[in-house]
């Protein structure tokens, strides 16, 4: 049996748990906080609320707002400069995958110096990071509990995966109340991302009993709650999605993912498309490709989804790729690559990069460039 490891941060979960932010920061020795977030959260007012929470506890706060979606290496450097210029001590990341991964990148540069691509790959961080508190707002990326940070390298047009136990934050505060302001597309994109995390990590070659149970929990919750959450922003459903996202994060952080994410990363690096849009398109085909190597597990996933989906029994499908396909179509998610990327003449290059992606290592079935091209072809 493979020796594995299960590492997660302190997780503070619950409606209104955001109010503990200041005391958490103080516990980590904060006097001047660097807050990393993005425009969307500024507009929805959460950035202001966080700053006020910190101010009320007499904590200085400097806000870094130089982020776009899919954070870039140069933005990371700007954030690190801001951290140093303001003598900040604790980093708070608020948002979806982008601000949270940017916070991780900034923390890495601040304490280890150099450029972010120096740390691409696994375990290349050699010095401790400043304390981090991450507050997810999308119930998707799971980055707030994971050892992964995905940063875009504009020069090479790739998404770099930085993997290190040091990227697991000190504290993750998950407050479902923050999900209320999200638009429908974002709820869907992030829920699908979380579902992909759960499915890929469940069948991963590094899956362990500890990750599998988290993955199944996530799958069950997403399947049961994605519709009410997206269509009526039902509070209970949103809460369940955030539990699912965190559980999926715990799972993939320790078990790794698969080629679905490898392809999503290289596509995202090349075309700057939203991560959560590429996954539902690729996932059914990736599941189909992996099926021979993870038949039992795929069945378990299918059963889990069927049990939590309130659908009539005769409509039930038993093949996981079909289940996913119909589920996404029902939600009105674009299901063809051509709908989200401009052309397919760089597919070979994209697939070559994806083979090298760290996420491919844990894919249950060995995949070469041709296999991935085939998957992309089916998805086009």
């Amino acid at each position, binding site marked *: 049996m*493979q*020796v*594995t*490891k299960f*590492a997660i941060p302190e997780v503070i979960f619950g409606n209104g748990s955001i109010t503990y932010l200041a005391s958490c920061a103080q516990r980590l020795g904060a006097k001047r906080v660097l807050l990393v977030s993005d425009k969307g959260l500024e507009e929805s007012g959460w950035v202001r609320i966080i700053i006020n929470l910190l101010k009320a506890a007499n904590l200085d706060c400097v806000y870094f707002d130089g982020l776009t979606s899919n954070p870039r290496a140069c933005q990371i450097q700007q954030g690190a400069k801001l951290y140093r210029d303001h003598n900040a001590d604790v980093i708070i990341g608020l948002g979806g995958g982008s601000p949270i991964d940017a916070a991780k990148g900034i923390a890495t540069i601040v304490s280890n110096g150099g450029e972010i691509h120096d740390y*691409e*790959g*696994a*375990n*290349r*961080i*050699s*010095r*401790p*990071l400043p304390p981090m508190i991450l507050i997810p707002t999308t119930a998707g990326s799971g980055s707030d509990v994971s*050892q992964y940070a995905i940063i875009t390298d504009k020069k090479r047009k790739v998404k770099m995966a930085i*993997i*290190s*136990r*040091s990227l*697991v934050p000190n504290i993750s505060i998950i407050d479902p109340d923050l999900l209320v302001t999200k638009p429908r597309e974002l709820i869907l994109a992030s829920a699908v991302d979380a579902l992909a995390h759960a499915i890929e990590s469940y069948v991963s*070659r*590094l899956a362990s009993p500890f990750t599998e149970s988290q993955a199944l929990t996530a799958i069950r919750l997403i399947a049961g709650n994605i519709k009410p959450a997206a269509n009526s922003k039902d509070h209970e459903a949103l809460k369940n999605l955030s539990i699912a996202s965190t559980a999926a994060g715990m799972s993939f952080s320790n078990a*790794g993912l698969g080629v679905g994410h490898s392809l999503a990363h290289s596509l995202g690096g090349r075309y700057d498309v939203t991560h959560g849009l590429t996954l539902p398109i690729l996932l059914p085909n990736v599941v189909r490709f992996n099926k021979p190597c993870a038949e039992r597990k795929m069945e378990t996933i299918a059963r889990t989804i069927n049990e939590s989906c309130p659908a009539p029994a005769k409509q039930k499908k038993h093949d996981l790729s079909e289940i996913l396909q119909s589920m996404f179509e029902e939600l009105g998610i674009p299901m063809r690559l051509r709908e989200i990327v401009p052309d397919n003449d760089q597919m070979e290059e994209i697939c070559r990069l994806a083979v*090298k992606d*760290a996420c491919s*290592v*844990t894919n249950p079935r060995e995949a070469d460039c041709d296999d991935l091209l085939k998957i992309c072809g089916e998805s086009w």
Partner: protein
Amino acid sequence: MPEKTALHDLIGIEHHKLNFFQELQKNIKELKEINRESEDQRCEIAAILDGITDVMMVLSEDMKIISVNRVFEQLFPGINPIGKKCYTLFRDSEHPCPECPAFKSLSTNTVCKNTAIFRIEGKNQQFDMVASPLKTPGTEEDRILIFKRDVTMEKEYQAKFYQAEKMATIGVLAAGVAHEINNPMAAVAGFAEGIQRRLTRLDKDIPAELAEDLYDYTNTILKECLRCQDIVKTLLSFSRPVASEFIPVDLNQVAEDTLRLLDHQFRRYQQVKLEVKLTSPMQSILGNEAQLKQVILNLLTNAVDAIEHNGKISIETFIEDEHVGVRVSDSGCGIPEENRDMLFEPFFTTKQVGKGIGIGLSTCFNIVREHNGEIIVDSEVGKGSSFTVLFPLQRD
């Protein structure tokens, strides 16, 4: 792009979330090391400071003592000087000393020197003072570093050297003069005696009254000749090389001898009233007669200068408590307050050019100190001064 990631990299059994504990440990170790180094440096600097034989003080702008070295503690044993004002310790005064080099050093931001005599533990000690401003970067507060070197000995040797030179010159002169005077004196005395012998033979030939007169004159001539010879003898005693050993000396005798030297001076100025009170019986002290004569001579000369040929000078010897003393007082001009501390400085003088060069009192000071004695000055401007020299009483 790094080398290909493998499964065990993702598991990362041997990798964990790095924390600051090891870094902290490393820092603590480094800090301890640095701390040890700076402690060593501190000790070294402290050793260097303790090796300095001068009194060293760091003063604040308002003359409060901030820190001192070991020599200071030896000078004022058992006193915690920190926070006390410098002038209260050294001068027992409520106000800063006007000649203090510290102020000058502060205002000009340069190293300033000065010399002063301080009376510490009842003894006068002469110090060379060097004040240098201590500008500490980053603080508004200026501080002053003051070194005080006890130069009592050096000054003494300096004075002694001049004195010795002078005495040698006087000695040579006096020896010559003594011979030159003794010869005519001998002739005068001889011829005076001759006249007296002739007078006895001429007894019948001249009137008795004239004979009486001639006897009287020749007697006076003889007496004065003897006195001249005495004076010459006294002069010669001054030019004798200094005896290295102290012998019992009678202060009364010393006072009388010295007065005899100045006899002609007092006679010349009729307005000078001399009052002599010599205690008898007198206890002898251990000392050097020639040097003690010099002390009294200097004090008397100063008294004569102070009254400017008009006033009263008194000299008295006394025994009290454990001391034998001699006091020379005058009704002269007195010593202004600002000059009191300078009195015993070599080459400090208020006399006109040609009258003195200012080593009289400093010589006195050194001679008296060598005799384990002390000089006490008491003076009031316009009323007069009195100098009391005390010597320890010899117990048999």
